[in-house]
């Protein structure tokens, strides 16, 4: 009785973790001006799976949230940013909503 309960709890934890991992962060080189951010936003919004995009010049970061049930491969994201004229250093999937990422980015580095 205890083992199935633990198994179900663990499964639910794993599933909820996957379910919330709908934001992808990219570290980008060359991100220094508003026009850079504008171009990247335009490029990423053209991808059907993109729900929203946040760009931080200070953190040199682009964050993308996905529409429910959709995905963008890392290769496609890297290709989109390269096509926009920028260099992607790193891509990672985070367990935060885009609003959470936006809030985190608003906390200025001292």
């Amino acid at each position, binding site marked *: 009785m205890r083992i199935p309960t633990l198994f179900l709890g663990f499964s639910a934890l794993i599933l909820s973790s996957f379910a919330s991992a709908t934001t992808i962060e990219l570290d*980008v*080189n*060359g*991100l*220094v*001006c*508003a*026009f*850079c*951010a*504008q*171009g*990247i936003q*335009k*490029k990423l919004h*053209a991808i059907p799976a993109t729900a929203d995009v946040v*760009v*931080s*010049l*200070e953190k*040199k970061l682009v964050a993308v949230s996905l529409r429910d049930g959709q995905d963008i491969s890392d290769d496609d994201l890297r290709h989109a940013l390269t*096509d*926009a*004229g*920028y*260099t992607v250093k790193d891509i990672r999937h985070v367990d935060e909503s885009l609003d959470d990422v936006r809030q985190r980015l608003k906390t200025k580095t001292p």
Partner: protein
Amino acid sequence: MSRFVGTRWPAALLLAVVVPSLVEAKPIAFANGTTVMTEYGAGTMEEVQAFYAPYYWLSAGAGYLQLDSDERNRARDIRYLRVNYLVKRWNLDDAQANVFAWGGLGTATGNDFRGSRLDRNAGFQADYETRRVYVSFMSDLHESDRYSHRVDTLQLGVAPYAYDYEDLATWFVVQGRHYTGDLHRGMEWAALLRLFKGGAWVEAGVTTKGKPQAMMMINF
């Protein structure tokens, strides 16, 4: 800061509309983007340009350039088609550097020759930019069988604070400009205030001789 900016933004916009100007910006803003630019330098030039960029490294469009000599009573009206090409870009950790080149053809009329002439346009721009420092050099040549005018522009910009995408960006820019073809003798120096936010860019200032300079640019 935002209150300070809020009171200055409409004033700068008004200044740029009332006092047209002249300055440079990147000839290609971003892929699938349209750039509309208007520049004015009192007594020397006025220019309007519109470009569309299918790629981040290529744009094409049209422009109108009016050149006036403040030494001799010469005037040129040039309408041209132009292609801009990003020769090289360096995406660095905290900076970006670019080299652009362009070329085009057009028609020109002037007050010291009859009829319309074929105008040939060529130029290049090299720039380096961080969130606090901006340096660029641009050389733009227009010539025909009756004239040759080259305008070389050096800009040094400093931002008093590091802005982010949703902030208003403020830059203090010093500009040095040299004209060939009897348009202006010696270097023309100007101090400019540059503001931009989102896709809108406004720049205005004066030369050391008190002549107004300004530019407006919209990217969408």
